[in-house]
């Protein structure tokens, strides 16, 4: 029991923080938690949430992905050409978009695994590459996304935001099962101790590649939902999401040194981050003071994670084991 708490406390804390912020938000919101308000909130949370999941798959294997935003931009631009027309064309378009995401992820993965380049720099470079391609496709924002599919994905089902259902679906039908597979455990093994993983018979290279591919896949999903919300293509969307996805995973209790944290946590972190920004809408705060306040809250939320270090009684413990 204690062990289960210990191994999940980071996520639990993140979820509690989220709950508090959310109540705060809805209490400041003139119209309260109506389906409409919930849907707006869930939509933008999920976009960053998916970006954070993409980041999670890089971080969990001791990497970092600075191309998340660029992959979103690229897939968003592609979507703005392909996701339109008959149901079949739309479906095909979605598949292409996801395939592109996986490809980008694999390119990152191969540079890291075979090219032996540190993930952070490899993705810094590929990010610039992907962004360039996105700009070729959409020198200025434009194109459009099929409104029907957009509505289906961004409205609600029986009063529950579709995006929220989607998020829960990812956790229950993708993450929890994955955790019980060799791949799922391998991710943690590689991130936690590459040598131990290797000696235990894990194919470190395959796991890394798979992890980056998954990252690319979720970055593409993020780009896709961004497309559903904005119904257009824009090569300029990247920068925010790359840095915020990193902040999000950390808020969600994922350790940047790899091997610790969960997809659920990453999602929660993203939801926290977006809820903080939403708090500004009806906070009645001076407009020019809002960026500062937002920064302070973010720093505070992150610092809370650091606070318990002060309670550590053995200096060596702060280095983790």
């Amino acid at each position, binding site marked *: 029991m204690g*062990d*289960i708490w*210990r*191994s999940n406390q980071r996520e639990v804390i993140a979820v509690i923080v989220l709950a508090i912020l959310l109540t705060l938000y809805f209490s400041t919101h003139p119209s309260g938690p109506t389906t409409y308000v919930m849907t707006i909130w869930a939509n933008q949370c999920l976009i960053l949430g998916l970006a954070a999941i993409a980041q999670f798959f890089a971080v969990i294997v001791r990497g970092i992905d600075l191309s998340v935003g660029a992959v979103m931009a690229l897939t968003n631009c592609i979507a703005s050409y392909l996701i339109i027309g008959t149901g079949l064309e739309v479906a095909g378009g979605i598949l292409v978009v996801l395939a592109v995401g996986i490809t980008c992820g694999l390119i990152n993965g191969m540079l890291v695994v075979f090219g032996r380049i540190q993930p952070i720099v490899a993705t810094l470079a590929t990010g610039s590459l992907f962004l360039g391609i996105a700009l070729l496709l959409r020198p200025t924002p434009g194109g459009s996304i099929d409104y029907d599919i957009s509505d289906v994905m961004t409205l609600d089902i029986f009063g529950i935001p579709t995006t929220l259902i989607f998020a829960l679906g990812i956790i229950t039908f993708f993450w929890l099962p994955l955790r*019980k*597979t*060799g*791949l799922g*455990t*391998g991710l*943690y*093994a590689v*991130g*936690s*101790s590459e*040598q*131990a*993983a*290797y*000696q*235990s*018979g*894990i*194919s470190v290279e*395959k796991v890394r590649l*798979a992890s980056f591919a998954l990252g690319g896949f979720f970055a593409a999903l993020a780009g896709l939902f961004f497309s559903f919300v904005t119904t257009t293509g824009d090569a300029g969307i990247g920068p925010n999401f790359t840095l915020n996805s990193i902040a999000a995973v950390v808020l969600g209790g994922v350790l940047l040194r790899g*091997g*610790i944290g969960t997809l659920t946590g990453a999602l929660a972190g993203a939801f926290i981050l977006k809820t903080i920004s939403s708090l500004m809408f009806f906070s009645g705060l001076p407009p020019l003071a809002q960026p500062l306040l937002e920064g302070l809250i973010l720093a505070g939320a992150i610092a809370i994670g650091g606070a318990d270090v002060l309670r*550590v*009684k*053995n*200096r*060596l413990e702060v280095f*983790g*084991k």
Partner: protein
Amino acid sequence: MVLSSTPVVRLSGVSKTYGSTKALTEVDFSCFSGEVHAILGENGAGKSTLIKLIAGVVQPTEGKITVNGKELVLKNPSIATSHGLVCMFQELSLVPDLSVRENIMLGAPGTGFGWLNSKVVPQAESILEQIDGAHIRMSMRVADLTLAERQQVEIAKALTRNPKLLILDESTSALNSSVVEKVFKLIRKQRELGVGVLFISHRFHEIEALADRISIFRNGQYVETFDNGAFDYGYIISRMVGQRIDDIFPPKKVFNTEAEEVLKLDSYSWKGGFNNVSITLRQGQITGFGGLDGQGQNEVLLGLFGLLKNTAGEIQIAGHSVKITHPKQAKAPDLGIALVPEDRKTEGLVLEQSIARNLELSALGTKGVNALDPTIYQTFLEALELKCNSLDQPVSQLSGGNQQKVALAKWLALNPRCLLLADPTRGIDVKTKTQIYALLRRLADSGIAVLLLSTDFEELIHLCDDAHIFYDGEIVSHLKGSELTAENIIAASLNIQTGGEVHG
């Protein structure tokens, strides 16, 4: 003991070189099913390399490996495991951030990316019970386990892989004798089942107790194989080292109980770690810390080196009561405390940096020491006979024994008043041990006070003037002189009260 005709593994003409290092040269070696085959050799003799070859961790530069008669290329550990070649590595193959359960299932044959096979878990649990590991819960994070507990899990993990050849590379180095005995029971059972066992240890009494046959390696070359008991220690050691070593331990001196006090602890305590520790350490005294792994003895050393916050009780250095809050303060000449930590690879050394850089690191910024003057390390490196190409060689390229010599020398150069050692000879070969023992004796005679934490009671008996045995964070017995016997130490470690001055 019946030997089947075809060996489980046979290495023929196998060589392994790392860059310029020849780890193994032209080795012909076989291990048969149903035998426990011990491998002896100094640090860097090539033992780990040998078993890494068999376990598929590294591939031979030359020569071939045959398994049950079939010649195989063992591209990676999972292939080796699938042929029943199962290894307990010296650097444990457990993933710190995963639970014990997940570690047990991790990489089990046939898993791949697919579903984990949970059948092995109950198996592992029952094995753990048989080796005093019942208290290790499957849900625990490996990072939270002591080294001993990890070795127990590693053993359980290996046995669930139903091995044809079981390899233990110093896999019992952190286990206390009572657990080791139980592990041996299991291993013998495996042997009865026809499993071949390769056993690497630097502890002679263990090899004597377990091995059927013994092979000796020296500088990467196979020397010879003989039945256990065929020769005496002296001979075996001479074959390992290439020279005779008559006394492993230097002769004890009767130390002067009137000598100046160096370190005095008065009911020194740390919540959740240790309690009421009171000891006195005088110039020239070598005091041992004994007991099962993780009874708080290591924490006391950490505390004395300024690594623990809010400790209670009093510390006196040379008669002055002090508060030690940081290693920087601890190493300063006015306190003169040095700590050689438990894990040389992550705590004692910066593996990526050169030997010289590592030596200088603690000397830098210490008053009255010129860190950049190589001569201050020379005497110790010579006394320990460090084996290396040059002081600019990265420490990572040294064998662990030699790594340990660097970890030791870097502190001795500060000529500390009080030297704290956390199990400095774990996984270290007999020759290196004798060198370290002799040096410690010499240092003591020169007036340094030595606090030696050890899991090897031979050291407590033969090297220490007295020993404090820890149990559950307290000193349960203080053994002096003639009281220092294996029986007393083991009894005290298990908190069965016998001879010796017993603490409340």
